[in-house]
C-alpha cells in the first residue's frame, strides 16, 4: 500500500519537476537569463561590499582563504535552501487551480519546488566546487562524500520545512510574506557573509541559535578546511533535519484533507 503510493509519487515527480523548471522560464524571453543573473549580481555585490570595502579576511590554519571561496561555499547552498522553502511554501496556494480539479498528491508540489531549486542552484554549486578544487589542486573522496551527505540532508530539511509552510499557508496566506522577511533576517544572522569567529561573544549566542548556522558552518568546514563537522553539530543537524521532516509531513497530512475546502 505504502510502497504503491511511493511508486506513484516517484512516477509523478519527474513530469512535475520538468513542468516546474519550464514554468520558471516560461512567459519571458529573458527568463533563463534572469534566474542566473540575479544570484550572480548578489554574489558580485556581497564580494564588493564585504571583501573590497569592509575588507573581511578569512584566516585558516593553512593561511588565508579567499573571501569569494568563503562566500560561495555558504551562499550557494543557502540560495537553494531559501528558494526551496519560499517557493515550496507558496506552491500549494499557487497550484490551487490544479488541486481543485484533478486528484493529485498535493505533497508533490512543495517537493518539486524544493528539488527544482536544488537543480537550479546545484549547477552553481557544482561549477563552484569544480573550480575551487581545481584551483586548490587537492580534494579527498571523503570530502566529496561529506558534501553529498550535507546536500542530501539539506534536501530533506528543506522538503520538511516547505511541506510545513505550504500546508500552513493554505490557511494563512500571510505566511508566505512573513517567510521572506524571516529568511532575510536568518540570512544575516548566519555566518555566510562573515566568519563566525569575528562575531563578538555577546552576539554569538544569537548566531548559534540560528539552526542554519550549524549547516553553513558544516559547509565551510568540509569545503574550505577539509574538516568534518563535530559530533555534536552533526547530531544537532540530524535532529533538526529529522524533526523538520517529521513535523512537516505530520502537519501536512493533517491539514491536507481540508485544502480543497479552503483553496
Amino acid at each position, binding site marked *: 500500500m505504502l510502497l504503491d503510493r511511493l511508486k506513484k509519487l516517484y512516477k509523478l515527480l519527474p*513530469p*512535475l519537476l520538468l*513542468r516546474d523548471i519550464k514554468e520558471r522560464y*516560461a*512567459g519571458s524571453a529573458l527568463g533563463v537569463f534572469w534566474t542566473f543573473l540575479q544570484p550572480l549580481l548578489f554574489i558580485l555585490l556581497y564580494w564588493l561590499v564585504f571583501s573590497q570595502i569592509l575588507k573581511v579576511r578569512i584566516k585558516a590554519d593553512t593561511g588565508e582563504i579567499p573571501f569569494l571561496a568563503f562566500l560561495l561555499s555558504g551562499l550557494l547552498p543557502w540560495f537553494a535552501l531559501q528558494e526551496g522553502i519560499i517557493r515550496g511554501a507558496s506552491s500549494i496556494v499557487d497550484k490551487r*487551480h490544479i488541486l*481543485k*480539479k*484533478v486528484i493529485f498528491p498535493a505533497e508533490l508540489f512543495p517537493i518539486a519546488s524544493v528539488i527544482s531549486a536544488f537543480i537550479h542552484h546545484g549547477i552553481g554549486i557544482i561549477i563552484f566546487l569544480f573550480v575551487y578544487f581545481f584551483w586548490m589542486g587537492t580534494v579527498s573522496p571523503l570530502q566529496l562524500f561529506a558534501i553529498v551527505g550535507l546536500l542530501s540532508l539539506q534536501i530533506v530539511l528543506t522538503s520538511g520545512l516547505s511541506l510545513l509552510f505550504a500546508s500552513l499557508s493554505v490557511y*494563512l496566506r500571510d505566511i508566505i510574506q512573513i517567510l521572506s522577511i524571516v529568511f532575510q533576517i536568518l540570512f544575516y544572522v548566519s555566518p555566510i557573509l562573515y566568519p563566525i569567529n569575528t562575531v563578538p561573544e555577546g552576539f554569538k549566542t544569537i548566531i548559534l541559535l540560528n539552526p542554519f548556522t550549524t549547516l553553513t558552518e558544516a559547509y565551510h568546514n568540509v569545503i574550505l578546511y577539509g574538516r568534518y563537522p563535530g559530533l555534536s553539530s552533526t547530531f544537532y543537524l540530524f535532529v533538526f533535519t529529522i524533526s523538520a521532516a517529521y513535523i512537516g509531513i505530520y502537519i501536512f497530512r493533517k491539514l491536507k484533507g481540508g485544502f480543497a475546502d479552503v483553496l
Partner: protein
Amino acid sequence: MGDTELVVEVLRASELSKIYKLYNKTTDRLKEFFLKGNRHTDFVALDRVSFSIGKGETLGIVGENGAGKSTLLQLIAGTLSPTSGGVMVNGRVLALLELGIGFHPDFTGRENIFFYGDMLGLPRSYVQSKFNDILEFSELGDFMSRPLKTYSTGMQMRLAFSLVSSLEPEILIIDEALSVGDIYFQKKCIDRIMDFKNNGKTIIFCSHSTYHVHVLCNKVIWLKEGAIEMSGEPEKVLPAYEHYQLQKEGKIHEFDREAHAPVLIRELKLLNAQPLKRGDDLQLSAILESKGEENRYHFSISLKIDPSWGVYFTGTHIAGKEPLKGKKKRIIVTFPKIQIMGGYYYIHARVLDETGFVVLHEKILPPFEVKKDSLERGVCYLENHWEFQDL
C-alpha cells in the same frame, strides 16, 4: 430497463455529506485546529446523499445554484473529501468541473495535454496515441502550439472537453461545461456524449438546461438545499423541477441565452381568454426571430400540467415538417377542441436546431387554467359510453 437485466454498478455514493466550516477570519481556522474550542459555524452543502449508477447509465443532476451540485460532483471526482459517507467508484473517473481541468496559462495546449496525462499517471505513449484525436475534435489547429492564455473561454472548454473525453474514462463527469461553447461545438459534444453512452460508458451530467438532461440522461437527481428532493426517471423529475422553478419565479421564466441564441422566441402568448373550458380551441402564437437568413430551425411545444407531468409534446421536427427558416416568423398553433380536464397547465416552447437536438432558445408561459366543469377527474377527457345489460 427490465428488472431481470443485470446492471453492473460502477458508482455508489452512500450517505454522502459535506459540511463546510465557515469562519469569520481565516486565522480562526488555524486557531481551532491547534487550540481547542469552536470558532466556526457549519454550512451543510450536502446532506446524506445516496445513489448508485450502473454501467452505461447517464445520470443527470439538476438543481438551483447553491443546491450542492458542484460539491457533489467534486466529491465524486475525488477533489473534495466528504465530511461523512463515502463514494465507491469502479474505474477511471475524469471530470470536467466548472470549465477547465487545471490548465496552466503559460503552457501551450499540447504541453497542457501531456501534463494532464502525467498527472493522471497515464503513459506518455498512450496520451500521444490520443493526441491526434484531441487535436481533430477540438479543432484548435495551430492554437495547439500557443499558450493557453491566448485562448478564448470557448477554446479552453473545447480543449478540456476533447481531452477528457478522448482519454476513455469509465465515468465522465461534466459540469455545466456545455453552456460555454458555441452551438456548433455544443452539438459536437452532445454527439460525443451519445457515442459514449452507446459504448456503455457512464456519464454524470450537470446542466441548467433541462432539455439536455432530458435528451441525454436516463436517471435524474434533483438536488435542493443539499439533499435529494426527487430522483428517478427524467419524465418524472424534470417536470417537477421545472414546475418548482416556475413557481419560484412566479412569472415567465426565461433562460439567459438571448444574447447568444441564433434564433429567439421573441414573443409567446396564449390567444385564448382565460379560463378555458374543455372543448375550446387552444391557440398559441409565437414570433420567432432569426439572426441570419440561413438559419434553419425547428419549433416545439410541450403542454405540461401543473403540478408535474408532461401532457403532450410535439414539434415541427416530430410532425415531419421541413426545418423553418426566415428572419422573422409568426407561428400560430391550434389545438382544436382540447380534451383536457380542469386544472392548471403551462406551455413550454423551444426553438431547436435543424437536427432537433440542440436547444437554441426556450420560453415557458405561466400556467393557465382550464375550468373544472364536472365531477370527472384526470388529465384527459376520454370519450365514454356506458351500456347496462341485465343478466
